[in-house]
């Protein structure tokens, strides 16, 4: 039965709710839709619901439109009809309500588009419109059945399209990709008319509108969002809410960057720029009407109504400049036009742009020089399917020397006040500087900075740049009003819990403070955490041997703990070998993998004589081998570049000193054969901090395909680099996913063992650095907290600008009211442990804890300034040692 809630005032606000195809195609989602409509009504708003066609129906209708065969069209129409009749049954509503639409569907399918008096496109518009007309009809019935007083509204009554441009050729833009007319915006008449219809809840269609003659037209891609925006603007709504499968816009494409953060607040210009530069979530077209009308737009997840989503509002005058998102668009073609003749020549640009216009190509980015103009073309069907680029270049060649550079990727940093951020982009620029950058464009509205580079170079780049932006605070990820949870935290499922467990040291704070009382700076290593990490790795069955990269932390207690967990060791110097052998007496020599870099020939020979497994990565080191080592097995480290199929110039350019160039592989194998040593292991290690769970599989695939030509290879050493989350909100590496990827690899190459050599992953989290505050200094607005640990104790921040969490252990629960720089006692301006940290009010004598300091901490310490090294303590179940 229908329950009438208390009536609304005539000037009650409107809220527009839009639901996409996957939301309206499921019965359980209709329960959510009904609940939301009821909730908005109870909050005192009138509600207009805008729906798409059931998921897949628009495509199915388009397939009918493409079919020449009447029988095929009829079969398609029958399938669509049956789907809606079935869905009506699932919703428990009367399928007879669909009758008028089903009749139209049958008729349009039977007649076909060729015979239509206004042409094929007009027929197609009518046909495709049926998807929304049917879904909204069923939806209205579902709402009423749930007890809401709702009315069905024909969108064509209120939404009119712009008059078609005169030159519109085949009618595609007139009928199938029309623009909503601006006079559809801000219209009090619509409010009055709806008020007269005696309902508080209406349901209408996205995607469809009428033209000046009252015929049905479609609003093109993203059309349903545009419809909702137009309705919202027209009704002067309090808010438009777009409900979909994802919580909102993210700081990067989550498929490429799992650590991408939900953007909770954006202004219209920023959102528009993000939509233009690649976010598929939102069509840029839909923002215009709302911006002009000043109606906020909220993007929400239908499955997770608890999440706040993204709220897009007019610009806040006091918002600080910041980078909100980074995007990558691939398949870009650059056209570079070069001629000395353009210098001070009037009309050169007009001439060449006229050629682009003649070929129907729209230019995106532009870079100019005295003798060169380079423009970018977005990938379009036109470019891929026709010879338009060839024809364009041919014509341009009459004006200048032309070069078509493709395929390129455009990487855009988006946010307000880009020009004020340049000093923070050092690491991002350094990363890009190693690649082939063809064009840099800074948008004239100061909302984006775009780099166009070789597409192959851009693979895998986005996560690194995203992390670099956060680390440099150019993307202020700790501003939790704007930056919400990461996609990984929200959607990665059980593998990555939404909230990480509290770190081990939280519970040990009093004991740690007591130890700090014995002297600082002090490193503390928590062995149970080391064991937990080791056991997590050992649980991945696809890997036969785990080698602990000793260089991360050679403390004997850690070496013993890991040996007891069944790990082997990877050493890079005789000193490390000795450290392992003395910490773990009697360790079988083949459990040590010796992988030095550019070491003296004697080191290799000695290690082989000891029976260690030895990794070579150059011809000279192998050539120097004495005959006595004939018959021994060795490992070979290859430089396979940063990814499959990456450019040679990255590989051999100013790259790393590690690994044998692939081109030298045949010569290496010939030398191995001459020295009668067998290459039994292929090894590659591509870097550290890798959070992409598929990375090691990719390395393995590379190595395995190389191994097919090398008959003695038995093992693939896929390196280490397993990321640990240093930054707040950074998702942890999904180990289960790593295991699945490696299992696939193992199944494809069952004859090859898989080895890995993690270091940081095992020990970083287990270690903290305790340091006492020497003094606190205020310099203008800057607050400096000086402590007794510095770059001589923990070098990573100074060396890599690494980010370590810092807390005041004496005031763990005090509010973080300061933004302070934490610095050390060394006479170097780089002696900074953390910049701009949120900390409570801190006084001299407080103890600070630097988190995640177990890897590359004490082992990289120095005696610089002749200051004393930190103490190292081990905390195990039985207490401190």
């Amino acid at each position, binding site marked *: 039965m229908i329950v009438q809630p208390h009536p609304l005032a005539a000037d009650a606000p409107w809220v527009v709710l839009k639901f996409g195809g996957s939301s309206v195609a499921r019965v359980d989602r209709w329960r959510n839709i009904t609940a939301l409509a009821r909730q908005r009504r109870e909050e005192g708003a009138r509600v207009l619901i805008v729906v798409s066609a059931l998921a897949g129906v628009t495509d199915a209708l388009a397939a009918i439109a493409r079919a020449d065969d009447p029988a095929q069209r009829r079969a398609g129409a029958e399938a669509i009809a049956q789907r809606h009749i079935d869905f009506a049954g699932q919703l428990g509503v009367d399928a007879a309500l669909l009758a008028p639409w089903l009749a139209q569907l049958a008729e349009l399918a039977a007649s076909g588009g060729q015979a239509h008096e206004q042409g094929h496109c007009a027929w197609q518009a009518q046909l495709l419109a049926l998807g929304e007309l049917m879904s909204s009809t069923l939806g209205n019935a579902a709402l009423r059945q749930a007890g809401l007083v709702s009315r069905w509204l024909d969108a064509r009554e209120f939404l009119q399209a712009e008059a078609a441009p005169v030159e519109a050729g085949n009618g595609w833009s007139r009928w199938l990709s029309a623009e909503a007319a601006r006079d559809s915006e801000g219209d009090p008449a619509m409010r009055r008319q709806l008020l007269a219809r005696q309902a508080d809840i209406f349901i209408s269609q996205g995607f469809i509108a009428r033209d000046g003659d009252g015929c049905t037209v479609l609003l093109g891609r993203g059309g349903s969002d545009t419809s909702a925006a137009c309705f919202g603007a027209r009704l002067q709504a309090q808010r438009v809410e777009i409900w979909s499968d994802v919580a909102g816009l993210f700081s990067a494409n989550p498929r490429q960057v799992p650590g991408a953060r939900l953007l909770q607040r954006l202004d219209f210009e920023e959102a528009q720029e993000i939509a233009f530069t690649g976010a598929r979530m939102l069509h840029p077209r839909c923002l215009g009407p709302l911006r002009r009308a000043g109606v906020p737009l909220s993007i929400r997840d239908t499955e997770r109504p608890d999440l706040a989503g993204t709220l897009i509002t007019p610009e806040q005058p006091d918002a600080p400049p910041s980078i909100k998102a980074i995007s990558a668009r691939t398949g870009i073609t650059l056209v570079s036009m070069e001629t000395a003749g353009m210098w001070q020549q009037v009309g050169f640009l007009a001439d060449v742009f006229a050629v682009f216009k003649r070929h129907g190509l729209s230019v995106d980015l532009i870079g100019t020089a005295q003798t060169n103009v380079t423009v970018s073309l977005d990938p379009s069907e036109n470019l891929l399917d026709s010879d338009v680029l060839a024809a364009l270049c041919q014509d341009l060649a009459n004006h200048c020397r032309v070069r*078509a550079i493709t395929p390129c990727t455009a990487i855009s940093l988006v946010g307000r006040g880009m020009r004020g951020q340049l000093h923070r982009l050092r690491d991002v620029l350094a990363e890009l500087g190693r690649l082939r950058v063809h064009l840099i464009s800074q948008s004239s509205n100061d909302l984006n900075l775009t780099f166009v580079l070789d597409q192959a170079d851009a693979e895998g780049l986005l996560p690194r740049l995203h992390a670099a932006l956060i680390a440099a605070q150019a993307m202020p990820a700790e501003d939790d009003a704007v930056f919400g949870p990461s996609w990984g935290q929200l959607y990665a499922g059980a593998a990555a819990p939404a909230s990480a467990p509290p770190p081990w040291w939280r519970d040990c704070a009093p004991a740690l403070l007591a130890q700090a009382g014995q002297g600082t700076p002090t490193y503390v290593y928590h062995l149970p955490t080391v064991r937990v990490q080791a056991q997590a790795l050992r649980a991945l069955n696809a890997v036969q041997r785990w080698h602990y990269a000793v260089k991360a932390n050679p403390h004997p207690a850690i070496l013993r703990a890991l040996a007891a967990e069944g790990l082997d060791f990877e050493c890079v110097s005789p000193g490390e070998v000795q450290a392992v052998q003395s910490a773990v007496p009697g360790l079988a020599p083949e459990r040590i993998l010796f992988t030095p870099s550019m070491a003296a020939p004697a080191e290799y020979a000695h290690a082989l004589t000891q029976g260690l497994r030895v990794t070579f990565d150059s011809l000279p080191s192998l050539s120097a081998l004495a005959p006595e080592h004939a018959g021994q097995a060795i490992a070979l480290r290859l430089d396979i570049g940063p990814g499959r199929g990456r450019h040679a110039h990255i590989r051999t350019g100013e790259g790393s000193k590690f690994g044998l160039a692939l081109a030298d592989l045949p010569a290496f194998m010939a030398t191995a054969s001459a020295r009668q040593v067998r290459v039994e292991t292929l090894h590659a290690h591509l870097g550290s901090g890798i959070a992409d769970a598929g990375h090691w599989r990719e390395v393995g695939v590379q190595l395995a395909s190389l191994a097919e030509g090398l008959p003695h290879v038995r093992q693939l050493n896929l390196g280490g680099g397993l990321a640990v989350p240093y930054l707040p909100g950074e998702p942890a590496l999904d180990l289960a996913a790593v295991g699945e990827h490696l299992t696939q690899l193992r199944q494809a190459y069952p004859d090859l063992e898989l080895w890995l050599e993690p270091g940081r992953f095992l020990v970083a989290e287990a270690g903290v650095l305790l340091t006492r505050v020497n003094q606190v200094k205020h310099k203008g607005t800057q607050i400096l907290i000086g402590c007794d640990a510095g770059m001589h104790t923990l070098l990573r921040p100074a060396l890599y600008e690494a980010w370590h969490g810092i807390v005041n252990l004496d005031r763990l629960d005090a509010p973080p009211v300061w933004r302070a720089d934490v610095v050390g006692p060394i006479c170097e301006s780089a002696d900074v442990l953390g910049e701009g940290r949120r900390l409570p009010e801190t006084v001299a004598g407080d103890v600070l804890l630097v988190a995640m300091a177990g890897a590359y901490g004490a082992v990289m310490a120095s005696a610089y300034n002749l200051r004393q090294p930190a103490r190292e303590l081990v905390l195990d179940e039985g207490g401190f040692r």
Partner: protein
Amino acid sequence: MSAGWTFDRERIRVFRFLSARYDAESGIARLAYAFDDGPELVETLGFPDAPPVRDAARVAAALDLVHWIAGVSYYKAAIPRRIEFASRQPEPQALALLDQVYSDGLAEFAWRNGLDLRGHLSFAESDQPRSAGAAAATTVDSAQGDPALSPALPRRSLVAIGGGKDSLVSIELLRSHGEDMRLFWIGQSPLIAAVAARTGLPVLNISRRLAPELFEFNRLGAWNGHIPVTAINSAIGVLAAVLYGYDAVVFSNEHSASAATLETGGRSVNHQWSKGFAFEQAFAAVVQAAVSPQLDYFSLLRPFSELAVTARFADMTAYHQHFSSCNRNFRILGERPAGRWCGECPKCQFVFLALAPFLPKPALVRIFGRNLLDEPAQAAGFDALVEWQAHKPFECVGEADESRAAFAALAGRAEWREDALVKRWATHIAPQLPASAALATLLAPRPGHAVPERYQALINAMPDGRAPGLE
């Protein structure tokens, strides 16, 4: 097997064919070999759905062919001078074929290992008493009968698919001809499986497992190198045709596969020997004589140049984001182009170059994810393709004429001519070479093929110079 025997390639005297059996119950064929009195080396082939034996004589004859030809994988580990048959002795015609497979087919292997196999080996009947196991040498060898009188094989084709452009061109030609066909490949390959699935045709994936001892022999210093794998696959295809009932086994080797890669010291070394016309004819003749006169084995693309095949493939856009001709065998595919194309081997270089005249530039670079012709570091690879100061690579790539013609076409096109390697061709290489043949002339069918009469219409359906940008 004798205890204490170890593999020592220098001391091995004889390679022996022991036995071949097909078990219709399990669909598994077992091929057994041995060196001297070493362990039995057993290779297994798995035929899905365990096809029953309809004609034992034909199956036995085809199984023998597989046994003899697949032995080359093991023989090459030690290359002894003597090969013995403890199983059935081949007829003279088959023996002549084997002699070619074990010498010409191993020519590249020999050249790379600094060996000369000409006049090296001799085939003989075993002088050892047959062991009990070998008594049942070929499972179905007791069945007698004139193959010519056997029931007819159904009129349909078993088509080899390789995941690259060539077999796809054949498949689409045959499809347009209304051919009843099934696609087959041997061993695990996600690329081929994915491409085969895209065709929507029925498929047959035959499994093949090498004798595990071979890996151990490798560790002990076995010879290694290129083997005539197409010969092995052809023989397995013929056995499959007999088991499942097909009267044609279709491969997709082009005209250029017959050209020698290298002539040296009076020897010609052809990397693609078993893809060449000489092997095709010799093998087809043995199949007709020994297995069934109704069974056609041929290469549908034999009359065509690589360029003609590539031109045809350029139109088959549905496959462009799925196929790969790269010889880095990625057993796991990535989503991105780099998961299918290494972008640096001769196959990648040749396919890129050969497709370039026939595809819009943005569409071509989308396939590879990069523009190989604008990478100066790849100059040496492309030089080898045009045989400029280098010999043609040991790979299945087109002839130098074809690569030269493609470069010449690109040098005339505004969207290509400024790219590093096209420019290099035009300014440095072309002036030092005789004029390149026009692209169009290389698209015309060539004489010398064994395509049965009933497929003539397909040959006429191939492109003949209507490439875009060609006048």
